């Protein structure tokens, strides 16, 4: 009774996204060195409360079941809790990513009482030294306090979201232990060279050996650990990880940024992947259904240099954003191709695209040897988040 394989259906796009990331603000109290949206300062053009309500109304009409809200740090928006309530009252569930700054005991109790709100706390080290080197001094303590508050309020199964880096790839068991301690679920996602991550990727992205260990660890833990489908390039090792294993950009996922711009995916904040703006006539619905960019992404893709590779059917050439921001052609190998084709291709790159946007705090660049450099967001939204089952 099965029709065409689901992956084929998804590649040609759906009338509404399955999973939508919505960054509510570029403002952030942190300055994570790998922030994929280069957040820090609020943008004066950010959507007003009324404009956010209108977006939620559209999502309700399109039957988008839930949105992944991030930023910046979304909870610093004064109308954040109001918008969460507005969304859930309109049958749009909310999962929001936070560094934990506003998750007080009172907030935690309120969140625990709702079936329609899920919380994801960002943590990029299982120890404060590893975490704070990337996310900033005190950020580990803030995240752990938020987790304690959620657990004490009885919020079962909140998510702990980790961007896997060279520095924390050896801490996977420790991360799992932290999640188990709080009755939370661990979520591991891939570091992308997006936003400020473009500047730090060389130092932070896992080594080839670490990728292999990560893959084995993920296979061992199966659906108990979420990945937001972000490691589908590792399917080229052999067995696929749980998930859809495809790039959902513009097909089943997209990003709405704080000023209403719609991008193909949360990791592709660049003019080349800008599909339109929710403020234009027809709103988000028109952008999703009729933008030229999305129509293009939904056409059958060619494998390019990867087409002759035996693993192409598994990895589909990997992550579009990772290729783009490392200066690789979109129809060639992923920079972290497990067959090693990416490193060869990277050695031939002579120029990388410049970021289109930067909302970083104006504290001036700081050297990156495991150092701070400006803002954060909940740096880990990813396509197909939560599609583990």
């Amino acid at each position, binding site marked *: *009774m*099965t029709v065409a394989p689901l992956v084929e259906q998804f590649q040609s796009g759906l009338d*509404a996204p399955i999973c939508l990331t919505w960054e509510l603000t570029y403002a952030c109290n942190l300055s994570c060195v790998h922030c994929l949206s280069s957040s820090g300062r609020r943008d004066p053009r950010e959507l007003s409360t009324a404009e956010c309500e209108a977006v939620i109304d559209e999502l309700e009409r399109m039957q988008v*079941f*839930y949105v992944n809200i991030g930023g910046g740090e979304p909870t610093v928006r004064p109308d954040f809790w109001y918008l969460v309530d507005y969304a859930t009252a309109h049958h749009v569930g909310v999962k929001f990513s936070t560094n934990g700054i506003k998750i007080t005991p009172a907030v935690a109790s309120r969140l625990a009482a709702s079936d329609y709100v*899920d919380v994801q706390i960002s943590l990029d080290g299982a120890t404060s030294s590893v975490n704070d080197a990337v996310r900033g001094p005190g950020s580990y303590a803030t995240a752990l306090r938020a987790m304690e508050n959620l657990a004490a309020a009885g919020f079962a199964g909140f998510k702990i979201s980790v961007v896997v880096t060279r520095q924390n790839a050896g801490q996977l068991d420790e991360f799992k232990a932290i999640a188990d301690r709080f009755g939370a679920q661990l979520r591991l996602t891939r570091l992308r060279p997006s936003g400020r991550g473009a500047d730090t990727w060389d130092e932070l992205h896992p080594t080839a050996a670490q990728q292999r260990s990560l893959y084995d660890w993920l296979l061992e833990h199966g659906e108990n650990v979420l990945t937001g489908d972000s490691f589908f390039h590792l399917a080229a090792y052999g067995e696929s990880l749980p998930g859809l294993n495809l790039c959902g950009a513009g097909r089943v996922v997209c990003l709405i940024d704080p000023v209403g711009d719609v991008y193909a995916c949360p990791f592709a904040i660049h003019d080349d992947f800008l599909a339109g703006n929710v403020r234009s006539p027809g709103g988000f619905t028109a952008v999703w259904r009729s933008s030229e960019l999305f129509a293009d992404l939904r056409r059958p893709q060619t494998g390019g240099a990867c087409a002759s590779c035996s693993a192409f059917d598994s990895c589909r050439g990997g992550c579009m954003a990772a290729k783009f921001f490392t200066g690789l052609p979109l129809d060639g190998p992923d920079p972290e191709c497990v067959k090693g084709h990416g490193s060869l291709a990277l050695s031939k790159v002579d120029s990388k695209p410049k970021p289109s946007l930067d909302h970083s705090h104006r504290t001036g660049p700081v050297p990156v040897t495991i150092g701070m450099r400006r803002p954060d967001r909940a740096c880990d939204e990813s396509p197909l988040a939560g599609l*583990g089952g």
Partner: protein
Amino acid sequence: MSTEDGRGSFDLDAAWDLAAPVSIRPERFGALLYHFGTRRLSFLKSPVLLDVLRRLEDTPTARVACAHAGVAAAELPAYRTALATLAASDMIRQRSAS
């Protein structure tokens, strides 16, 4: 609550309903199902199965819902397996139990 932990042990002669926290979004290939309580997404890969689910609440048994949706006897085991999977993930619930 999961009513079954395996496939195939689904009671076709019981009354079933879509679980209250579940939303359905029809798609070309069938439908997307989302459970707000467990936050799990499922894919219905068949428009006929979607039809079966929509008929559950107005029919006395799952077997009748299948018949009304035009499921032939030979196909029934496959639909029973699909329904068992949906019951195991709490997408549908036995009516007496809810």
